[in-house]
């Protein structure tokens, strides 16, 4: 009996569904349920990775039609390199997170039953796997909704808190507004495929075979981009993201931020590169501009946060922006018939997709470990955790370095590739684009540098210095499953950073499928050690040499300096003669970001309030100082408040119909029937 890759993927989904169904059987012994449940999801995720990696590596395309679905439209499944890539990304992170969850979810024992969490966790994973496997619009949307609904319940898990309920409500609204747009987009494409006859147009195969007129294709693309952007948290559709991600349990935040957002990226790529295929350059420009705005605004908003998980959530907005930059550039290059450059930009975007899944998953797991130990999300109340949680600190640091795009970790490689794609834009035959696209590169550089500032702040305030909090909890290091989950993703971050050539070689089938060009042969032109995007005299970067080089100098310097014994004196910190120095005098998250807040303040709505309580009525000798700072998203006031107000107003108007009297309702039915009889005979 032989397996195809899609069989393995299907077994993985099946295993998840079985786990979801049978989880309630073990409701009685929660401890056992956690171990068994998450072990099974670990296995299922591993199967998904195997299927995906195999598909991409061997450039396979497998199809299956399930004997289920509508009579005219059975469920179509297809595993091609694009699906395989995303299956690998999702599977890999859920593999790490499932291991992590074995330890993390035990923190809920004795507080609340976790059966529902495990059930929805399985459904959530299965939904994501099915989204990338779906090969017809109906199955895609069903999977999409399973994913959205399951994640809604996961965000709601600790539903006694009002902020969780509010966040979940906001999330489900935005998700559904997006889903409607996606549905309409599929409707346009299917309608044009078959001329609104029958259901056969809803399969992706039929859409692929059709050549769409530009006007309708644009409508379909814009609707789909809107819908997927809402899911991905592209600014200005991001408001749900910093609300929903922090309040979910941290393993769920890791998955939502790390991979659920990527299904939207998958959707954008699938629809534009695979289903619609040809597009004018300004589609790419739209994607690029939204990507740039998301990247810069995302990181600036992140800098203003002092809630660790909220900060990470805003960084997801930023990184989605960076991914979209790569995809947008790729679309522009494709529309000008430059397949090689398009392949480079696409590879940069997809590489960043993988990288972001890894380091953001790692960072959310780290934040979860901190939350688990301190029961605190506010960074202003933390500090000095590196002494009590050395493992978590070191692994979180790996995530910080990776996300700040610093060599030799993985975030740097994909941002560097994106820069290279930017640097190739002068070869575009359009003077306008030649002048404008470099500004994008500058914005990306700004983003990278601000991200580094933000993670110095996040790591510095959380893990370094002294404990800032008022209460002094008993902090314990994370347990082994949590450490292993984080360790594995940290190692992946390092591996992808040091050996990007192997990864690019592996994912080469992808750019061939989508833009018809390979870059692996030129990208590894000098050998596996050097990454050379187009040609070696154009630009090159060697992860292994950077890593080994720095480490070699570090070791040599260390050994040379320790050949002679020199004493290390541990002394109390120097207080400059001021003897009342205390822990509240340290720099904290708010003070760290103050210069940036002042420079970029015009992008936020900031309310700063300083109040002095004077001593003996004399303002010169203040007794106490109250400092109050409120920073809000500008988009909430600009965009959402009017919409919220308008919808409330509309519902009130419609509400007038509801009189609460049966006679009035009977009149409504009567009038309706009359109208129907008159007009629809």
């Amino acid at each position, binding site marked *: 009996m032989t397996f195809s890759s899609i069989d393995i993927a299907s077994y993985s989904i099946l295993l998840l569904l079985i786990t979801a169904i049978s989880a309630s059987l073990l409701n009685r012994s929660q401890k056992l349920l956690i171990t068994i449940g998450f072990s099974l999801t670990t296995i299922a995720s591993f199967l998904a990775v195997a299927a995906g990696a195999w598909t991409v590596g061997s450039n396979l395309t497998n199809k299956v039609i399930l004997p289920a679905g509508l009579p005219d439209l059975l469920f179509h499944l297809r595993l091609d390199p694009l699906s395989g890539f995303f299956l690998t990304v999702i599977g890999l992170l859920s593999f790490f997170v499932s291991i992590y969850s074995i330890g993390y979810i035990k923190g809920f024992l004795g507080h609340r039953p976790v059966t529902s969490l495990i059930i929805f966790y399985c459904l959530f994973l299965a939904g994501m796997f099915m989204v990338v496997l779906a090969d017809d619009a109906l199955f895609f949307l069903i999977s999409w909704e399973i994913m959205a609904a399951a994640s809604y319940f996961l965000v709601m898990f600790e539903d006694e808190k009002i902020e969780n309920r509010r966040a979940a409500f906001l999330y489900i609204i935005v998700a559904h507004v997006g889903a409607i747009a996606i549905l309409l987009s599929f409707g346009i494409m299917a309608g044009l495929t078959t001329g609104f006859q029958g259901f056969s147009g809803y399969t992706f195969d039929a859409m692929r075979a059709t050549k769409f007129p530009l006007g309708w294709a644009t409508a379909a693309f814009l609707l789909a981009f809107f819908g997927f952007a809402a899911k991905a948290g592209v600014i200005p559709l991001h408001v749900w993201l910093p609300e929903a991600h922090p309040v979910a349990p941290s393993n769920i935040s890791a998955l939502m931020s790390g991979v659920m957002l990527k299904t939207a990226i998958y959707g954008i790529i699938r629809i534009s590169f695979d289903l619609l295929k040809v597009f004018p350059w300004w589609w790419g420009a739209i994607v690029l501009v939204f990507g740039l705005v998301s990247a810069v605004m995302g990181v600036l908003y992140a800098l203003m946060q002092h809630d660790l998980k909220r900060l990470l959530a805003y960084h997801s907005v930023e990184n989605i922006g960076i991914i979209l930059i790569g995809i947008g550039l790729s679309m522009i290059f494709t529309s000008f018939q430059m397949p090689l450059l398009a392949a480079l930009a696409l590879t940069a975007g997809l590489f960043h997709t993988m990288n972001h899944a890894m380091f953001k998953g790692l960072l959310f797991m780290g934040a979860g470990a901190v939350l688990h130990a301190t029961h605190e999300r506010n960074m202003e109340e933390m500090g000095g955790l*590196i*002494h009590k949680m050395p493992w978590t600190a070191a692994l979180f640091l790996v995530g910080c*370095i990776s996300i*700040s795009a*610093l*060599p030799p970790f993985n975030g740097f490689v994909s941002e*560097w590739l994106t*820069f290279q794609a*930017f640097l190739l834009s*002068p070869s575009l035959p359009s003077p306008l684009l030649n*002048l404008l696209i*470099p*500004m994008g*590169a*500058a*914005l990306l*550089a*700004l983003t*990278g*540098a601000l991200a*580094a*500032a933000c993670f*110095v702040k996040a790591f*510095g*305030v959380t893990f*370094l*210095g002294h404990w800032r909090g008022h209460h002094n909890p008993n902090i314990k290091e994370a347990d082994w499953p949590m450490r292993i989950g984080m360790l594995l993703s940290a190692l992946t971050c390092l591996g992808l950073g040091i050996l990007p050539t192997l990864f690019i070689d592996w994912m080469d089938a992808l750019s061939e499928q989508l833009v018809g060009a390979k870059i692996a042969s030129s990208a590894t032109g000098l050998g596996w050690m*050097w990454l050379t995007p187009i040609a*070696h*005299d*154009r*630009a*090159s970067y*060697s992860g292994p*040499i*950077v890593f080994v*080089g*720095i*480490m*070699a*100098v*570090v070791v040599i*310097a260390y050994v040379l*300096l320790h050949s002679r014994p*020199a*004493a290390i*004196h*541990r*002394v109390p*910190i*120097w*207080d400059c003669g001021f003897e009342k120095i205390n822990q509240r*005098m*340290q*720099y904290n998250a708010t*003070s760290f*970001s103050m*210069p*940036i807040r002042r*420079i970029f303040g015009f992008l936020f709505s900031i309310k700063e309030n300083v109040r002095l309580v004077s001593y003996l009525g004399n303002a010169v000798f203040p007794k106490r100082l109250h400092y109050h700072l409120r920073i809000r998203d500008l988009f909430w006031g600009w965009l959402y408040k009017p919409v919220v107000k308008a919808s409330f107003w509309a519902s009130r108007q419609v509400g007038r119909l509801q009189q609460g009297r049966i006679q009035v309702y009977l009149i409504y039915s009567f009038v309706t029937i009359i109208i129907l009889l008159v007009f629809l005979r």
Partner: protein
Amino acid sequence: MIIYPFIIEILQILIILAVAPAFAGWVKILKCWSQGRTSPGLFQPYRDIVKLFSKDVVLAENASWIFRFTPYLVFGATVLAGGIVPMLSVDLPLAATADVIALVALFAIARFFIALAGMDIGTAFGGMGSSREMTIASLAEPAMLMAIFTVSLASKSTSLSQMIQVIYSGQSVFRPSIAFALLAFILIALAETGRIPVDNPATHLELTMIHEAMILEYSGRHLALIEWAGMMKLFLFVMLGIAVFLPWGIAASGNLEAIPAAFLFMLLKLGIAGVCLVLIETGLAKMRLFRLTEFLGSAFLLATLGMLSYFILE
């Protein structure tokens, strides 16, 4: 010979280790002269480093491994960067390790760790320095990238060796875009290396210090490594500017015969660069922190003008 580039590579790393303190000393001498003071001599930085190496280390009680690891990492990243920038010859085995963007990122990782070390002890000064340093860095970065972009337009490459080769291959006409990029680069280099008017390396006044505030708690060999790396960074930014804008004198091939001449050219250019640096530093006062937006904004503007002039004029 295939072996010569490796010899030159080793030579170059030795030169950066050995000459960087002398350059720092040279700048100090010039500064003393220009301000009418007696100078401590060219070799004072060496004496400082040796003295610090022989001292014991005083560490704060709550210093973590990050605080102790940072000096080594900063030193390592800087030495590696020193192996990449062509100083004597274009033909370097390490040259393909990183292009300009990756080179800047090597300095960025050093800065990232120094900023973390600044926050490790938990004094207000360290955090203040880290916060300011990261702010300035994030403003300098877009300008830096724009300058790189402008320069790479002409050579169609971001690899340093390739840029020099293109300049050597005859298109040595003076381009307006390169002039703008050079001006932008000078402003950025002042910010990146922490010189006046951005930061004052000689100050320990709490209101004004940036880089010094982060490394205030260091002592002994840790401080020696950081100081040494700081000197190398200054040296490397001068070398980077020379390699990108005025490479004449750097040997185009990997032959040993050309090296002595290249070395002399390098010393000459370093001497002149030192004079320019001191002229800038004595002529200007240190800026307020929030005026730096304008300073780095003008660097960005200059680089952008360079790019525009490439598309419009060239």
